[in-house]
């Protein structure tokens, strides 16, 4: 098998449950946030994960980032299980895989300038000198369309769109291959949304990034993603190419989701009327 055949990220029968701990007098009820999810993301593609809030899509992103450990199942990165990484491999993984958050307002520490926060992993993990790190920071800020002097600003001095750009710069600084985009534009204004999505697109073209795009802006998912998985109550109910998902949705959940897109013209009307029927049955 050549390297290209191995999916970059493979999620294998992943289970995550919360709670269920035994305390002195009782056992709390456990909640299954993710139930037996398997999916594979190929190198260079944008994989969309959609579903209502609470469907488990964010939890999967967090587990791939190893911010959370799965209850069962495994995650393979480039064919290797991330839970069996050595310390050195883990350090390497931390720079290959990065995340961009939804709430740009809390994604930066409010008490330190943006530039210092972006430079920190370079100085700490990669042993850059202060000057070399700042040079790299300026370069990354430039790539996301921010001027140099933004490095000296504090998070509250930036607008939502600028903060999200800075968040992307922080992810770029370690030269990652794979980015988890956790609703990166949900909290932004329409015009800023378009700016950020275009930026992400351009960066992908330039660096051949692989994206996991977690979102509930369905029209953007249709536009941006190559393949899409639909989640419902911790399970994946449908996976297909974006075009097929939006054109011929198979699952009732998918149809309901698509029916909720508010389009300006009459597109998706067939699906919408079908979704209405589903809604009226339920």
């Amino acid at each position: 098998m050549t390297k290209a055949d191995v999916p970059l990220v493979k999620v294998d029968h992943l289970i995550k449950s919360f709670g269920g701990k035994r305390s002195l007098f009782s056992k709390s009820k456990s909640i299954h946030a993710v139930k037996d999810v398997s999916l594979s993301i190929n190198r260079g593609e944008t994989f969309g994960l959609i579903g209502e809030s609470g469907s488990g899509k964010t939890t999967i992103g967090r587990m791939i980032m190893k911010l959370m450990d799965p209850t069962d199942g495994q995650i393979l990165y480039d064919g290797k299980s991330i839970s069996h990484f050595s310390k050195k491999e883990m350090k390497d993984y931390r720079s290959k895989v990065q995340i961009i958050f939804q709430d740009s307002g809390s994604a930066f520490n409010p008490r330190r300038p943006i530039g210092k926060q972006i430079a920190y992993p370079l100085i700490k993990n990669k042993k850059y000198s202060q000057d070399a790190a700042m040079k790299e920071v300026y370069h990354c800020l430039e790539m996301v369309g921010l001027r140099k002097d933004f490095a000296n600003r504090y998070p509250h001095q930036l607008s939502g769109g600028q903060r999200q750009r800075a968040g992307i710069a922080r992810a770029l600084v370690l030269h990652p291959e794979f980015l988890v985009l956790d609703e990166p534009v949900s909290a932004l204004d329409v015009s800023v949304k378009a700016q950020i999505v275009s930026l992400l697109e351009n960066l992908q073209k330039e660096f051949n990034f692989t994206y996991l795009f977690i979102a509930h802006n369905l029209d953007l998912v249709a536009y941006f993603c190559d393949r899409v998985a639909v989640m419902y109550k911790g399970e994946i109910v449908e996976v297909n190419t974006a075009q097929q998902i939006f054109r011929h949705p198979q699952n009732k959940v998918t149809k309901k989701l698509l029916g909720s897109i508010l389009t300006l013209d009459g597109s998706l009307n067939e699906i919408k009327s079908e979704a209405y029927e589903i809604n009226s049955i339920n």
Partner: protein
Amino acid sequence: MNTELSWGSKVMRIFGKDKTAALGITIIIVTALVAIFADWLSPYGPNSAADTAQRLAMPGTAGHLFGTDDQGRDILSRIIYGTRTSLFSSIVPVVISAVVSMCLGIIAGFFQGRIGNSLMRIMDVFFAFPSVLLAIAIAAILGPGLLNVCIAMVIVRIPYMTRIVYTDTIQEMQKEYVEASRAYGMGRAAVMFREIMPNVLPSLIVYSATLCGVTIVTVAGLSFIGLGVQPPTADWGLMASEGQNVLMQGDPYVTLFPGLAIIILAFAFSTLGDWLRDLLDPTQK
């Protein structure tokens, strides 16, 4: 909007806006200067009884602005020397307990599992006693004396302050910048003390400043009932206590002046707390 104000101008601006805070801070600075230069400022030594004829001199008596107490000691001089014990016994225990609580609170909040829970349960046990009662009990066990009072105050304040840090830490832990720092491989200690600490520190500092005022009153109370500073040391609480014998004999000023000093300094600390809150807010322009 995008120009960060320098600390100096920030201080001046908030200072200019808030007259009460300006007054409070001036009081604290003056008190500190008085404590340092007590030897020069004070007309008499703290324990020098001029002569027995001068016992219980009324305020305004020549040479004794605030009068003298029942042993003929100059009250003004004793208040001036008393700033030393008062400032020491209010600030030192609060600072020590703040440092300890900061560490305990962040650790408990960061490791919410077994470590955090057992730590906080222990705190809750202390929490259950009224703090003054607990302070009296500890001071009684340790025996009277300034140092022991300070130890008692440290023990009494830790549970409160740890709870504040703990709650703030849990709140900060949910913010995405903490996850972001873990995502690029920052170590646990760095996340706790580099990322989280600067964000929980301000509310602790604010609380500490206010607590200094409360501590002055508590220490004075302990001295008043004989568990704190021992005579003949000049201490405001102790002076107020000594004055009670002559309070009803027409000499209320022996208690009045040290009492006023306690109230004024406590007030000054509480305004300092409010002022610090504004100063430490990063979004304050």
